[in-house]
């Protein structure tokens, strides 16, 4: 999430089409699964992620629909389940790709943007939206009401601002699956386009 407070900017600042002002300006709609979450954070929109991952590159929407054969080949090569036939992608004139992927773990559901160069190497990645379910507390209102109920229920809403949570580390091992799936998607399909 960008806390740009843009309304308070000077008019000169308003004229500057700044990176941070891109928040909410993108017209791209995401039709990903919405997981009921205890905790969600939005960091970047697609346009911002594009600018961070592939700066100064002109990107053209290049979505791909995988055939069932391609889907099975990617699954076999990456050893990772391919949930959707639709690859949400953009391509630069130089052959770079920007791909949108959803990383689904046991307790987390994360939208990520990955940049690949023209040789299929991963140039970088950014988390766009992060959603985490803490567990059964969502379905047990009595349990969550037993202690600091108001505060707890507030936390169960989508966070309006980025809140820092200290706790035991959440593993990012599912990202590795996403990277494997993407590199095999490039290798088997995108490189030939």
């Amino acid at each position, binding site marked *: *999430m*960008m*806390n*740009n*407070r843009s309304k*308070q*900017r*000077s008019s000169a*600042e308003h004229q500057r089409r*700044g*990176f*941070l002002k891109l928040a909410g300006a993108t017209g791209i709609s995401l039709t990903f699964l919405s997981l009921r979450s*205890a905790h969600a*954070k939005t*960091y*970047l929109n697609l346009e911002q992620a594009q600018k*961070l991952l592939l700066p100064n590159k002109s990107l053209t929407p290049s979505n791909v629909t995988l055939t069932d054969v391609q889907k099975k080949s990617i699954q076999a090569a990456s050893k990772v389940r391919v949930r959707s036939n639709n690859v949400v992608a953009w391509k630069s004139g130089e052959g770079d790709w920007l791909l949108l992927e959803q990383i689904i773990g046991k307790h987390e559901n*994360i939208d990520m943007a990955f940049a690949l160069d023209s040789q299929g190497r991963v140039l970088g*990645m*950014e*988390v766009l939206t*992060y959603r985490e379910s*803490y*567990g*059964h*507390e969502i379905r*047990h209102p009595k*349990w*969550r009401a*037993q*202690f*600091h109920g108001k*505060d*707890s229920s507030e*936390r169960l809403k989508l966070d309006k601002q*980025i*809140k*820092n*949570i*200290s*706790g*035991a*580390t*959440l*593993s*990012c*091992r599912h*990202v590795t699956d996403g990277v494997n799936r993407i590199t095999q998607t490039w290798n088997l399909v995108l490189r030939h386009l």
Partner: protein
Amino acid sequence: MNVEISDLASTLTRCKPLLGTYVEISVSGDVADETLIEQSNSAFAAIQLVQSRMSFHDAFSELSVINQNALNDWIELSPSMFKVLSKINQLNKDTDGSFDPSIAPVLLNSGSLPRHQSCNHDAPIADVGVWSNVELGDHRVRFHSPVVLDLGGIAKGFAVDQALACIASSLVCTVNAGGDIGMSHWKNQSIDILFGTKNRRATKEMEMRNSCIASSASYRNNGRSVIINPKSAQAQKSNNTYSVFAPDCMTADALTKAAWLGAATPEIMSKYNASLLVIDQHGQSLH
């Protein structure tokens, strides 16, 4: 340093998978967007560097080179590795051996750490809690017996410190590496501490007491503890969340393990200018 961030300030918050978890960096200031991007890029690069040096999972990290080659031979250390091993040396003495990173054999045997090729030693469980056989010289280290170190109990905190150190003092920055948090401007700031058990978790809001906080709990591991008592070579179980506030995140991170093992005495916490917060699975503060 007291930095006033005006209403015109911009904030950039980014998140990347690093250090085996998700690392979030937030930078604010009355500066051009490009400056925020450059500053956050530097901070992420600093974390990437710590990962490349201290990861057990990377067969070619500096740590893996040490684990493989330091038995009876001096290994030269990077300034960062020397700083972390020096801190461990101090903490090991102060906690009477409770903070000891030579617990990797237990984690290797349980499958929590990988037996990659460059780590081809097959250290028996008996070689746990043997930091006394690690000799630290001036930017070099050697082992006097088979030792396998895992820096999982301290490196994440160090990475937070390194990232914060990259940020210009005119900016406001928060780094959150999977729950280990450092803030350039922490006064009057609050954080949420996650507590509970595997299936039932909630958060408790707390005021920051220092610039950094780290927490340890077992709810991420299906109740299985990955905090190993170096004296018994056993995983020590607890349903509590142990949080430590400290002036630097490396100290906070390491002291949560000492606290988990019951070794964070008031004297030790005072020496490190740290404070301990223990929250039980029901959200009650025990300390």
